[in-house]
């Protein structure tokens, strides 16, 4: 019975004891042993010192590593903070702004146009070369889908699309018109099979 307490614990068992990792059984054996074993108390004291030193050294090495990493990060910013670095960064920023902003300025904003009169009674002018957002008067028309056509004064179809009558209006977005002169928007009922839709309304306007 006493024998298990007489054997000197291994270095690992002592280390577990110092680090409080020993299980209940091992703790009992080591504790009972060290109470009566001077040499193992000496070993334990040495081990405690060694472990404390290891912990401190590990902490120091870690702290130094973190400090180095932090310095590196700062240094990488500092290398940019020189005159050539800043000039290059500024140049790149201007270029990036140019890439983002120039197309926006060059892109023309659509012109909003409201057409409310019938052919012959309207003389509205819309700008040439700009996309259009057209609002066509659909007063007295039943709600529902409609076909929309854009034709020039010679009767040539320039564009066609579809929309819906909502309230008293039909709204369509039309690409830019590049030729001047009189133009017409026509509203048709949607095509059913091969049959063409019925003409509902026509609006005239000038492109200048």
């Amino acid at each position, binding site marked *: 019975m006493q024998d298990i307490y007489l054997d000197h614990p291994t270095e*690992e068992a002592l280390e577990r004891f110092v680090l409080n990792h020993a299980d209940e059984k091992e703790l009992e054996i080591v504790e009972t042993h060290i109470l009566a*074993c001077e040499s193992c108390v000496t070993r334990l*004291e040495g081990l405690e010192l060694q472990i404390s030193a290891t912990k401190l*050294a590990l902490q120091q090495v870690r702290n130094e590593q973190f400090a180095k990493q932090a310095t590196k990060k700062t240094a990488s910013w500092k290398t940019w903070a020189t005159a050539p670095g800043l000039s290059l960064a500024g140049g790149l920023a201007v270029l990036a702004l140019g890439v983002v902003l120039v197309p926006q300025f060059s892109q023309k904003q659509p012109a909003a146009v409201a057409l409310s009169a019938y052919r012959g009674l309207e003389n509205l002018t819309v700008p040439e070369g700009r996309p259009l957002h057209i609002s066509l008067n659909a007063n007295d028309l039943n709600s529902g889908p409609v076909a929309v056509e854009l034709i020039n004064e010679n009767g040539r179809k320039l564009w066609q699309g579809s929309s819906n009558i909502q309230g008293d209006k039909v709204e369509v977005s039309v690409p830019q018109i590049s030729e001047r002169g009189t133009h017409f928007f026509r509203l048709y009922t949607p095509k059913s099979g091969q049959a063409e839709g019925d003409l509902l309304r026509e609006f005239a306007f000038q492109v200048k």
Partner: protein
Amino acid sequence: MLAAQQKLSPTPAANVTQLSPEAEEAKTSKPGFTTVEWSELVSKVKAGEDEGMEQLYKLFSRGIRYYLCRQLGPQELEDKVHDTFLIVVNAIRRGDLREPERLMGFVRTVVRRQVAAYIETAVHTRREQADLETGITVADKKQNPEQEAILRQKTALMKNVLESLNQRDRDILVRFYLMEQSQEQICREMSLTETQFRLLKSRAKAKFGEIGKKKLTASGIFSVFVRTQAS
């Protein structure tokens, strides 16, 4: 049973070979508890013989001191050791210890009860004095200047050792010593066998010893130490 008690030294287990040189020296130079005949010792104490008391004190005082200091700190340590010793002696005299060969376990039980009692008293006192606004008293964990110097030196040596290890090996030590992860967890998470883990630690210790020796040799202390040992 007597034969077991008279066993002079424990059979050295294979792992006992891991003892450090200092421990080996301490083991061989001092006979320690392994030569004790427990029934004879208990009889002497029971009879109130000074020789028995002295032997008992010599045998257990260092261990009890270490244990109490580890559990309760260095405050009033000598008094606590003395109190514990008295409790053990009185219990033996009263005949509370029926099987002398269980003396070691008996002492452990007494010491643990003592620790529990001191902690309970401390908790009670703290609770009673909480309203007095005397402030919180904290045990002084500071080591003496000599111990601090030794620790500083050892830390510097260990730092050298750690810096010579690769990052992975260092991570293993960080997990074990700083993050207090268990060996099993580290082995599992870092795909290590137990042998690899042990090897790493022993390698670090060996390097530590090697660098320490070099430093001592360089400073001339080692040669003085060797001469002292030889004479």
